[in-house]
């Protein structure tokens, strides 16, 4: 402890360099903690917990639809209260071109992409009580096959109001038809009750599955079945029972909690875990090099001082310890700063408009002490490794050589 003021004073010597190294370390810890928290929460979401809804999908991939006939068989499984058809349409607003009829245009505009689901409205909205729709609007939606319910956020994004019409074109070949995009009418605007379901998103659009089914010539199945349970504590057993029903069939199923489904869906973008871990590792390695370089420069610049310290009686081991302590101090400051930034980001993420709903749906999302200590540990370890070579150089340096070079 008696050397601490000495170490801190040295860190202030070239504060720009120290600050940039600390910032580099902070970014490293920030990324590590934030990515680990998201990945951990996604992993946790895959575990069965006490939930009220399950998602049954094709066991091989979400790209395959399930036969509609499965609905009745799932409904007969013990513990199942309701089953609803739900299909991800993958629709976008068509690209607008001069003198082009959007009703005939086939090119979707992915810059205006949003989630749109074809659902079997009666059971679906009965089990999704967090989607709050005024009764007259819900009634109007029921009556109109082209009708849609849109979230308040989506309505604000596109300036839509009840009665507006728009076209959607799916990028999924199975949902594209020769006569052009599907036309929809806004029949209602829903609000998401986050108290009932933290993962509820007010930027979705729902329309009648029947519209899609009829539009595609009654030749499609469904992406998933949403299953409401009698007792949420039985989720694991019911999921196993549902999958058991379709075992060894042509289309085996995989039944998960909603949160696990969302996590898998997000991971479907690619190997998300590998991607995020690779980013984290690349950043850690880069920071290692940057910190190592900084420490080397710092030691090289202080050759005379190291010689003076040794002349005054500081042993080589102690001088090495001082250099390492300086590196660890940088690591600790950077780690603490990164941890703070990560905590702030993790606090903010659930409130962000684009990703917030997904994050809120991860039941264990939050900065846990294990991840925090891993983050700090990595910062200190990276700093120690980075400081090792310069510290060894300081250890080995001979006083007379350093004084001669000064």
């Amino acid at each position, binding site marked *: 402890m008696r050397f601490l003021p000495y170490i801190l004073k040295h860190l202030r010597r070239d504060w720009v360099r120290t600050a940039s190294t600390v910032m580099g370390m902070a970014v490293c810890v920030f990324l590590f903690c934030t990515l680990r928290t998201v990945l951990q929460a996604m992993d946790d979401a895959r575990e069965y917990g006490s939930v009220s809804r399950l998602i049954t999908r094709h066991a091989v991939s979400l790209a395959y639809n399930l036969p509609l006939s499965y609905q009745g068989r799932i409904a007969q499984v013990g513990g199942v209260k309701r089953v609803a058809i739900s299909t991800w349409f993958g629709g976008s607003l068509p690209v607008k071109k001069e003198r082009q009829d959007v009703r005939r245009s086939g090119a979707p505009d992915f810059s205006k992409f949003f989630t749109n689901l074809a659902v079997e409205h009666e059971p679906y909205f009965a089990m999704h009580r967090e989607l709050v729709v005024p009764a007259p609007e819900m009634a109007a939606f029921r009556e109109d096959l082209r009708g849609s319910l849109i979230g308040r956020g989506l309505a604000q994004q596109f300036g839509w109001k009840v009665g507006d019409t728009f076209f959607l074109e799916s990028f999924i070949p199975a949902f594209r038809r020769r006569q052009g995009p599907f036309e929809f009418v806004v029949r209602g605007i829903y609000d998401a009750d986050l108290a009932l379901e933290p993962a509820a998103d007010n930027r979705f659009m729902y329309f009648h599955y029947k519209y899609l089914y009829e539009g595609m010539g009654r030749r499609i199945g469904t992406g998933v079945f949403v299953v409401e349970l009698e007792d949420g504590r039985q989720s694991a057993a019911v999921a196993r029972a549902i999958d058991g029903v379709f075992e060894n069939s042509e289309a085996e199923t995989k039944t998960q909690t909603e949160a696990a489904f969302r996590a898998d869906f997000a991971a479907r973008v690619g190997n998300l875990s590998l991607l995020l871990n690779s980013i984290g590792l690349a950043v850690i390695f880069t920071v290692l090099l940057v910190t190592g370089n900084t420490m080397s420069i710092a030691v090289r610049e202080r050759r005379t001082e190291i010689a003076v310290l040794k002349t005054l*009686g500081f*042993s080589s081991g102690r001088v090495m310890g001082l250099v390492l302590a300086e590196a660890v101090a940088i690591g600790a400051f950077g780690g603490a700063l990164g941890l703070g930034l990560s905590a702030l980001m993790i606090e903010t993420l659930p409130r962000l408009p684009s990703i917030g709903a997904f994050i809120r749906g991860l039941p264990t999302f939050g900065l846990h002490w294990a991840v925090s200590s891993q983050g700090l540990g990595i910062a200190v370890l990276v700093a120690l490794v980075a400081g090792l070579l310069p510290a060894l150089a300081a250890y080995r340096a001979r006083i007379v050589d350093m004084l001669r070079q000064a």
Partner: protein
Amino acid sequence: MSAEPRPFPTAPPAVDIRSVRKVFHRGAETVTVLDGIDLRVAESAFVALMGPSGSGKTTLLNLIAGIDRPTSGEVVVAGTDVAQLSESGLARWRSANVGFIFQFYNLIPVLSAVENVELPLLLTSLPRQHRRERALTALKIVGLGDRAQHYPRQLSGGQEQRVAIARAIVTDPKVLVADEPTGDLDARSADEILALIETLNRDFGKTVVMVTHDPHAAERAHVQRHLQKGVLTR
């Protein structure tokens, strides 16, 4: 061959160097920097080492200060054969027995004057307050009690060297070694520094071994020794 001991002619020598050789290797070439040096410096003596560049003055000073080791021979300083000590033992010995004064002061720029002086005391078990008191006392001795909180960049060359001298004496070592302590100073500051070193020798009984090129500086010492090509000639 020995310097005149002052003020106690019969006291054991503070520095006793016998048959010391120092050889450097530069690739295949062998350079003998010191060749059979014998030197005795009595306790409380003030010796000036003179000689042309490359004569081995600084190497001899480094051996006395325990920051280098002889190739052969004995270097006994303050009763200890420094060549026999381990690396860490030598470091401990230096912290207690030798104060080193550099030509270019070599203060730590991020530390204030008092913190620079306190630096060697960090190796002792003294509590913080005692360390600070001793450092301030050392600064008062060199006449810089009012500059304790100044940083090296805020001091003149002469003042920096005074701080360096305070750092050298703060552990109360028996021997002070100075490598051209006035080499970077103007005449007036050089005179003040030499006067200070004389005071430390006369009033505090420090044994001083000083390397210098300057004949006027050497005149302040009790004894002048001359090196020529690694051999003491006078």
